[in-house]
């Protein structure tokens, strides 16, 4: 049994180790190790396309995870007090959001937004016909943030609600009996208790958005995110540069994971 477990860990970590190993190869070939070098890290970090894509990915992940955490938490709190068919409909939509494959979300958002933009853009052009630069809606960072926020917000609602259902009730009633305003109850009782769930939701959202390829592939228009860059360079032929980028991304997400773990542990202790 123990040997079996070791085999599974070898299976899980060999591919990751191979990526990291070949990122230090000196040669151009990504399948033969030709001496140790860190040149591919230097090349990746000085490649403007890589840095551009990284910047886009970080921006989209940060904005959509923040929006999702705020809107998702507000909705989870509000939904606690909503009953009846409206609540059932809301729940069903959240369920659909996490069930539908990312690829279907991608194509659906693409054709819906392109169709809407085709209708709206001539309008906008007539309204702003006097200005030099008419506003034109098109697929890009905005549509990508909107799509990622939709999906990650559903995740945050589910996570925060699970935590809320464990605490709500007696505590907030007691708080109200002691003449706390609804806002006071929320900020002093509910919020500190659900903070770890919100943080977990934020991190999950950030990671999802940062790693997402398939929704971005359809919705990002002409913008490039890091996963899109990696995918297209794999298609062009593999060089150790992709390994270097992959290794850096893995190390970065590992550090993020450890930090999150430390914060969560501290908050549950207090």
């Amino acid at each position, binding site marked *: 049994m123990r040997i079996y477990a070791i085999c599974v860990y070898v299976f899980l970590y060999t591919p990751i180790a191979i990526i990291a190993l070949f990122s230090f190869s000196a040669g151009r070939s990504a399948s033969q190790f030709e001496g140790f070098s860190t040149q591919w890290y230097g090349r990746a970090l000085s490649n403007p396309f890589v840095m551009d894509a990284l910047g886009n990915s970080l921006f989209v992940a940060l904005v959509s995870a923040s929006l999702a955490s705020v809107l998702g938490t507000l909705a989870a709190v509000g939904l606690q007090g909503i009953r009846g068919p409206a609540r059932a409909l809301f729940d069903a939509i959240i369920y659909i959001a996490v069930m539908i494959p990312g*690829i279907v979300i991608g194509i659906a958002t693409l054709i819906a937004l392109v169709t809407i933009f085709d209708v709206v853009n001539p309008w906008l052009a007539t309204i702003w016909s006097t200005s030099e630069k008419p506003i034109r809606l098109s697929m890009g960072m905005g549509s990508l943030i909107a799509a990622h926020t939709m999906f990650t917000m559903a995740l945050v609602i589910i996570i925060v609600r699970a935590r809320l259902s464990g605490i709500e009730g007696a505590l907030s009633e007691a708080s109200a009996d002691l003449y706390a305003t609804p806002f006071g109850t929320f900020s002093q009782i509910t919020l500190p208790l659900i903070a770890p769930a919100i943080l977990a939701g934020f991190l999950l959202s950030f990671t999802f958005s940062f790693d997402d390829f398939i929704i971005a592939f359809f919705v990002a228009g002409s913008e490039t995110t890091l996963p899109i860059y990696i995918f297209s360079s794999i298609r062009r032929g593999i060089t150790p540069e992709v390994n270097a980028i992959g290794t850096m991304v893995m190390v970065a997400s590992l550090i993020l994971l450890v930090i999150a773990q430390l914060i969560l542990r501290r908050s549950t202790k207090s």
Partner: protein
Amino acid sequence: MTQSVRNWLLAAPAGAWLLVMLVLPLSVVFVFSFGERAPSGGYVPAFTFEQYANLPARFTAFKNTLLLAPLGTLAALLIAYPLAYQLAVRTSNKWKTLLLVLVIVPFWTSILIRSYAWIFILGGRGIPSLLDVIGIEDMRLINTQFAVLVGIVYGYLPLMVFPIYVSLDRLDKRLLEASSDLGASPLSTFSKVTLPMSISGIATGCMLVFILLMGEFLIPALLGGGKVFFVGNALVDLFLQSRNWAYGSAVAVMLIIIMLVTVTVYMRLISRLSVQRDDAPLM
């Protein structure tokens, strides 16, 4: 401001966002699936079932998905279960958390990069060249169904281990001792106590993996080399290459219908299984 108005105001932004970015786009896909392709690509309004009648043209994509998604789920389950069991039942508390985190860490790194690693391992200079040394020549692994299956199991194994671990960890270990004290063989302890008690974890893990596999695009794209493609790959082709929105929408609607049907049947089956467990004496 009454309480119910306040609750609605809190939920309204999220609700509006979901309506515009989920309900509306999915409705558009549904409507477009009854339309026609514009000569230059895109969509022309119409009401026809032509796109649905043409679905058999993409039969291979559906066949591959419906073959490899359940097969991949099953393979992941068979590999994950003994590991989850080892971690939850046989490992001391000191090591448990660390070993579990080690299973989950790969899942937090991009699936794109992890699948890419298998291009090396299964490619000409990877395992086939090692097999060459021991005399097995010209073994082709990359761009086969086997490669896609390996990629699937590798990608989604953590997602399978975690729920099974949780269900086994909750299991009262004294039940296992009681069972063996009462003379049950290890095999019957497993089949009569351990397995029924972990059925909820198995159900959750299988469902998570299966749902994600049904919409998979990346793993077949990278490891199937255009020879083994899923419905997801057909969708990318239809929307980004041939720009046949109406037909692509019909394919997407069909995919969702198949998913809904299989998941519903599956849930029924699982709930029946757990009802049977509740009826069992002493449980």
